[in-house]
């Protein structure tokens, strides 16, 4: 019976308690469970005695006992199979039967019979006891070429089971044997063995990831043996040992030994690592310079524009295109379009169709990323305060005119000191007292006066007026000047010099009769209307401007003492706007539309040509020191030229919003003023330093307003008081205002 069972393990359901889930090859193929599968517990209870009943084989039962005794189940096996069946059911089922060595069986039987009552060994599960193949845990392939598979305890060879099954047998086996699916081969012994139901169940459980033991409760309530809370009392109340208070002699001994060894030089201190680079060092110090710089100069890719309202599915109506806009949009080149799409409105989001331009848009974006110039813009961080030039505060630059002091209703003004001269289109020139604003003399000239200038020479009291094509020399009221001055003027005018008549286009004549009584002394008849007259600072020469595009006869210089006139220019250089004599040197300044020419009167040549970037120069004024010139132009600018510096403007002031009509320098104070069509007069401080290296200091100090703009004309003329920091301005509104 035993032989049959052993030989045909497949037929025998081996009820072994030992699960062999992994079917460990090196073991337990010998274990033949002959016990019935159904009640292993009962057998357990019964112990080893009744084992024969079912098997019909005492040897088997004893064998099983033996196996229990010898700890077969764990022999050569991993510890895990013993774990799940650490329960009681293990012991009785050690009924494996080793068919391979009958002799062994008998041996074991005898042993077993010797001590049937030793219950304590039932629990024993020693590892080595039951190993019948003593080769140990080696790869069984090593015995592949041998007829045996190992050695038993007595050193005899364990022969390999005869395996003569060919494929056909195997197939038949498979077909006929219902237990074929649970038949495994024990690699160590080479036997086939059939897994019991329990073993199969165990395998199934483990495959599911469950515990092998059915009864194991993995969710047992945990028992807090030691509470996690900090207790105020010690767990044990045992007093400390005395030895914990006294120094340990053994330690002292050890320490003294170490000290002695150190002293003797047997123990050397641990060598410190020779670390010249320091503990922390720049890991990338030796890295290439360019590489890191490139990394630092990372230029981020341009950002995609954020979507706007017009891209909404429900944009506000102002974002929707009107029909005209739409037509324009359709006609435009795609590149020129402001929007690449037409904003559309949908009642709800689900009506929005697919965006057909998606690929285009992505492609454009990729192009942007690919083609964008990866160049870092050097942004200069400058404090805006630093860009403002350090200029003194206007308050420190007193005095300058600040408030309007007097308003007189008359068109033009030309003040000299105590007196001011007003002239205008109604054909009269009037002399006013500045301090009271009283008109003291009125001279009828019978025509619109275009220009009037006082003679700058203090020893002469004379005024030049231009009326139409006549220049009049008028003597102011006799009380306006010292008697000696008056007599000097008289002498100059009454000298009987024969005018060099006939040669030029100019006719000199002395006034007579009523005109003489009014104060008109001399008339100089010009061929064309005169717009401007200017005195030389010595008071003898007088320049008259007759602007004419076509003629070279635009400027005439008269000499009063000799009654002589000359035309200094033989060529027409453009429309003459304004002329001026240089206050110190024999220069003559002539402003045409675009440039200012400076002629040397002695050498009769052009010495300099100032090129302002003005389109149409309106007026010209020379600094009393003679090195600086200001030009006002109809394109709202005022250019300051430093004659020593360059022919380009040293500074261009664009304070006015409309055309600059007139500019003026103060004779003694560092002030200049400009009058503009925007109705304002701007007074600037302009210090010229005697040190040639220092540039002029130009500070705008005051905007004087008061004139009313009439017919788009604001302030027409501006003049300084010769000694006080006062400025007279005459406006198109027919008033003269004095600002002090």
């Amino acid at each position, binding site marked *: 019976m035993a032989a049959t069972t052993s030989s045909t393990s497949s037929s025998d359901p081996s009820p072994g308690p030992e699960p062999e889930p992994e079917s460990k090859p090196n073991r337990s193929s010998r274990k033949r469970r002959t016990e019935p599968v159904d009640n292993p517990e009962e057998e357990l209870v019964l112990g080893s005695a009744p084992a024969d009943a079912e098997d019909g084989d005492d040897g088997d039962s004893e064998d099983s006992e033996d196996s229990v005794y010898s700890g077969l189940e764990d022999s050569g096996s991993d510890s895990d199979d013993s774990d799940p069946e650490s329960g009681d059911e293990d012991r009785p089922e050690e009924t494996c039967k080793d068919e391979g060595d009958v002799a062994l069986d008998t041996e074991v039987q005898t042993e077993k019979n010797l001590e049937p009552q030793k219950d304590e060994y039932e629990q024993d599960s020693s590892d080595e006891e039951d190993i019948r193949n003593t080769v140990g845990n080696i790869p069984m392939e090593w015995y592949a070429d041998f007829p045996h598979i190992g050695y038993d305890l007595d050193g005899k060879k364990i022969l390999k089971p005869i395996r003569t099954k060919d494929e056909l047998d195997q197939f038949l086996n498979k077909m006929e044997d219902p237990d074929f699916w649970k038949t495994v081969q024990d690699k160590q012994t080479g036997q086939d063995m059939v897994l019991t139901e329990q073993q199969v169940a165990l395998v199934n459980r483990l495959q599911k990831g469950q515990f092998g033991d059915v009864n194991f409760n993995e969710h047992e309530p945990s028992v807090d043996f030691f509470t996690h809370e900090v207790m105020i009392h010690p767990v044990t109340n045992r007093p400390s040992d005395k030895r914990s208070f006294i120094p340990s002699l053994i330690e002292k001994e050890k320490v003294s030994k170490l000290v002695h060894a150190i002293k003797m030089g047997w123990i050397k201190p641990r060598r410190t690592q020779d670390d010249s680079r320091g503990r922390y060092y720049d890991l990338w110090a030796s890295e290439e310079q360019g590489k890191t710089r490139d990394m630092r100069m990372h230029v981020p890719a341009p950002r995609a524009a954020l979507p706007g309202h017009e891209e909404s599915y429900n944009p506000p109506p102002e974002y929707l295109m009107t029909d005209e806009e739409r037509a324009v949009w359709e006609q435009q080149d795609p590149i020129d379009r402001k929007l690449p799409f037409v904003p559309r409105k949908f009642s709800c989001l689900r009506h929005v169709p697919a965006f057909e331009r998606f690929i285009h848009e992505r492609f454009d974006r990729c192009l942007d990323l690919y083609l964008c110039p990866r160049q870092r813009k050097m942004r200069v961080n400058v404090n805006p305060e630093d860009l403002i030039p350090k200029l003194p505060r206007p308050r420190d630059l*007193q*005095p300058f005119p*600040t*408030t309007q*002091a*007097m308003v007189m209703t008359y068109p033009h003004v030309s003040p000299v000191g*105590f007196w001011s001269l007003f002239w205008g289109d109604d054909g009269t020139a009037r002399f006013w007292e500045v*301090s*009271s*604003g*009283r008109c*003291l003399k009125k001279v009828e000239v019978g025509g619109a006066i275009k220009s009037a200038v006082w003679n700058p020479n203090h020893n002469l009291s004379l005024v030049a007026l231009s009326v139409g094509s006549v220049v009049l020399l008028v003597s102011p009221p006799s*009380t306006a000047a*010292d*008697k*000696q001055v008056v007599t000097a003027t008289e002498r100059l005018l009454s000298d009987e010099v024969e005018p060099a008549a006939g040669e030029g286009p100019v006719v000199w004549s002395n006034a007579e009769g009523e005109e003489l009584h009014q104060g008109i002394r001399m008339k100089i008849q010009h061929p064309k209307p005169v717009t401007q007259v200017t005195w030389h600072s010595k008071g003898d020469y007088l320049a008259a401007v007759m602007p004419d595009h076509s003629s070279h006869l635009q400027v005439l210089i008269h000499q009063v003492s000799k009654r002589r006139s000359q035309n200094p220019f033989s060529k027409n250089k453009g429309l003459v706007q304004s002329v001026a004599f240089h206050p110190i040197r024999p220069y003559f300044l002539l402003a045409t539309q675009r440039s200012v020419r400076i002629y040397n009167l002695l050498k009769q040549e052009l010495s300099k040509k100032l090129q302002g970037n003005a389109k149409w120069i309106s007026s010209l004024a020379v600094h009393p020191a003679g090195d600086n010139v200001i030009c006002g132009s109809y394109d709202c600018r005022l250019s300051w030229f430093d004659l020593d510096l360059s022919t380009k403007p040293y500074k261009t002031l664009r304070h006015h919003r409309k055309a600059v009509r007139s500019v003026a320098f103060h004779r003694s104070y560092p002030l200049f003023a400009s009058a503009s069509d925007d109705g304002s007069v701007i007074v600037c401080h302009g210090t010229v330093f005697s040190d040639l290296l220092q540039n002029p200091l130009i500070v705008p100090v005051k905007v004087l307003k008061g004139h009313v703009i009439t017919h788009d004309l604001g302030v027409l003329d501006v003049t300084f008081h010769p*000694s*006080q920091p*006062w400025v007279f301005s005459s406006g198109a509104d027919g008033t003269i205002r004095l600002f*002090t």
Partner: protein
Amino acid sequence: MSQLQTRFFTEDKRYVVDDVPFSIPAGSEIQDLSNVINKLLEAKNASHKKVDFDFLVKGLFLRTTLSTHMETEGISTEDVVEIEYVEKITAPEPEECMMHDDWISSVHADTECKNLTSLLLTASLDHTVILWEWNSEKNKVKARHCCRGHTGSVDTVATDPTGTKFCSGSWDKMLKIWSAVPTDEADEIEEPADRPRKKQKTQQLGLTRTPIMTLSGHNEAVSSALWIDSDEVCTASWDHTIRIWDVESGIMKTTLTGSKVFNSISYSPLCRRLASGSTDRHIRLWDPRTKDGALVLLNLTSHTGWVTAVKWAPSNEHQLVSGSLDNLVKLWDTRSCKAPLYDLAAHEDKVFCADWTEGGLMLSGGADNKLYSYKYSPCQTDAGA
């Protein structure tokens, strides 16, 4: 509203109240304080008539509420506040308007009309000063002397306190001292030699007189001159300076430098201060005794145009009158420098001159050809002063 401890006192004997501290609401104004004083006076004197008072806290007129005034002036409200009260200066009343034929450029009031004849000085644009004799009975003037010497228009004349000399300032930057005694019927020696004018003046007004002394130093026209005492002349000029000259020795003693052109100055012997009117709206007070410097004691700012005339009150050390190109005449008290006491808006054009009379009149003339006189009651303040 908090209360302030105040004590009232006055220099005016008629209105003295007991020297006891009072607790006054801090928000009280002039009218409230005035009522308080009147109540006190009534309690003391049953026959008292109601009088309006003005109040001075630490020498400054109270113009707002007491608390704001003390806040702005930085006076502690913890202590007892001493408040002086004076009778309110009544508003000057326009009395007379005298029409003239032309602009009035200067006005001068004189009290010495005892004699039948008095002397007048006129300065002119024709570079001369003429000394006239005015017979008040016949109401005739006669030119006694024609003072020649200036080479510019003469802008200002002033006689010295004794009446024997006068000074004149001119556009030609000179200050000249002349004799004002007309008794010399005999000619002053004129130097006709240096004037060989073929065109002699047609009618010679009076006898020609030459200056005793010429003082030069100003860089611009002398616009105003006055005598501080019998040997000191003060001049104001367009060159932004006020200079004080010693007439005896003919040297300049002090220069006060301003920043603007001076049109007019006035000196008060009572408070020994100079008041100047300049082309920038401000009236400035100077102390002529400071040696050199530009120390402005006080700025009186209310005008909007050039100040053309300033004049101290002859009998009150605090008051002055000013005329300006903004057509206004203003009466000032130096104790209230922020605002004038009264604006006299009678003129319709520029005001050029202003003066006081001893008899309690203020005069002002201007470009509207009118000479206004204002009745001014100085009697109470006289008592106070």
